[in-house]
């Protein structure tokens, strides 16, 4: 029993380290890519190519004065950033990054946990995220924060529906909620769910952008009308938790898109090539990283390509287009499986 706890502890520590570094450097990548798209240079002062910029930003966060406004409700004001941060982190507990890594005479499975309700757990945590945002907006006792919090909660719950329905098709084909089984079900390029469930994929990705509050759906923090939305009154490291959770959210959505629709860590034909098991594992991890990297890049790319939605358009799209479309997709998948097309 203690061995299980130690192995889980080590995995959690490694993954935490990777995620925090990843999120920090994602800010650097985002600023560099933004710079490139806008014909600027981007961060280039701290370290070579500005590579130490995330570190400097983090340190600066610690040393900034942390202001709690006079009328704020203190317990929730303190709890809200943690509540936004923890669910976005805990999602990674069930995300499989690879199959098995045979190293040092042991076989390590490349996932922290693999519960049989994987995807349901992910959706449960995504719902928890709303609390952090809603509490942050309400407890600040500032009208911009409150409006931002309300908008964010309404947006997140609306798109969560479409997101939930969009994966039902994948679940029907796979017959399992376990994320690693969903990956194993997509062996070979043309068995990727992308080709079987194209509508589901598009809905999932669009809803993912809205769930992560990323442009073109960043209305909760629409600067021109709401100052900074639900985190208007936050400063120092309490503020830092919100962008951090947003970056975790982006990584989680990318990982889930890859797992649900792009065959996860699998590379078509790699297993048949007859390489050493260790080499296969490492290549598969790299493939997972590359596929995730593509979607992370897409997040940044879209940010500088599309203008922000109007709030009523956002709601119309969520409730009147994506929701019926995802229901039709479920119906269509049902017919397809009965007919034996998939």
């Amino acid at each position: 029993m203690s061995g299980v706890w130690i192995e889980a502890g080590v995995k959690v520590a490694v993954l935490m380290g990777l995620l925090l570094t990843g999120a920090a450097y994602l800010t650097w990548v985002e600023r560099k890519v933004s710079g490139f798209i806008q014909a600027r240079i981007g961060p280039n002062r701290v370290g070579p190519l500005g590579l130490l910029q995330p570190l400097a930003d983090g340190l600066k966060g610690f040393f900034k004065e942390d202001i709690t406004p006079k009328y704020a409700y203190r317990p929730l004001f303190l709890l809200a950033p943690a509540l936004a941060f923890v669910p976005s982190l805990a999602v990674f507990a069930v995300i499989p990054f690879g199959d098995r890594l045979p190293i040092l005479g042991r076989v390590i499975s490349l996932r922290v946990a693999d519960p049989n309700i994987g995807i349901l757990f992910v959706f449960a945590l995504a719902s928890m995220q709303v609390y952090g945002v809603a509490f942050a907006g309400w407890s600040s006792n500032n009208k911009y924060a409150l409006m931002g919090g309300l908008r964010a909660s309404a947006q997140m719950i609306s798109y969560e529906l479409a997101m939930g329905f969009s994966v039902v098709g994948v679940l029907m084909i796979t017959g399992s909620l376990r994320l690693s089984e969903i990956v194993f079900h997509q062996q070979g390029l043309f068995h990727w769910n992308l080709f079987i469930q194209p509508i589901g994929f598009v809905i999932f990705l669009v809803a993912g952008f809205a769930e992560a509050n990323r442009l073109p759906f960043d209305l909760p923090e629409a600067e021109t009308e709401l100052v900074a939305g639900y985190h208007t009154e936050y400063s120092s490291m309490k503020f830092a938790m919100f962008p951090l959770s947003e970056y975790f959210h982006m990584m989680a959505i990318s990982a889930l898109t890859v797992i649900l629709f792009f065959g996860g860590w699998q590379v078509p034909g790699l297993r048949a090539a007859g390489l050493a098991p260790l080499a296969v594992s490492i290549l598969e991890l790299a493939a997972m990283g590359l596929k995730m990297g593509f979607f992370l890049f897409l997040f940044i790319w879209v940010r500088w390509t599309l203008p922000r939605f109007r709030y009523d358009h956002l709601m119309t799209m969520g409730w009147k287009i994506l929701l019926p479309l995802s229901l039709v997709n479920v119906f269509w998948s049902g017919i397809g499986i009965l007919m034996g097309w998939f």
Partner: protein
Amino acid sequence: MEGYAAVLIFVIVGFAFAFGTFFISWVVHPHNPNPTKLSPYECGIEATTQPRDRYSIRYYLIAVLFVIFEVETIFLFPWAVKYQQLGLFGFVEMTVFIGILVVGYIYCWKKGALEWV
């Protein structure tokens, strides 16, 4: 339940990280508040209205509709997992179930619950 031990560790580590960060920041950051700094943010002027003003009824409507459809999602998940064993029976059953909800959905749409102006 063994698989959930790691999830529990993750959640505990997450909270510890968040509150640890707040604590370290609280130790090292300067503390010199003044009344202006502590006032609610309002573009440089004094706030004239209460922040907790009345807000649009639509947020409640969205929340109520969300609960209905989210419960539907929860019903769909186990059905989707067992779909291939259920076959035509499962398909017809779920068509009836979703059909009832779709009638409700169309009613909401006609009543204007999904309009946002």
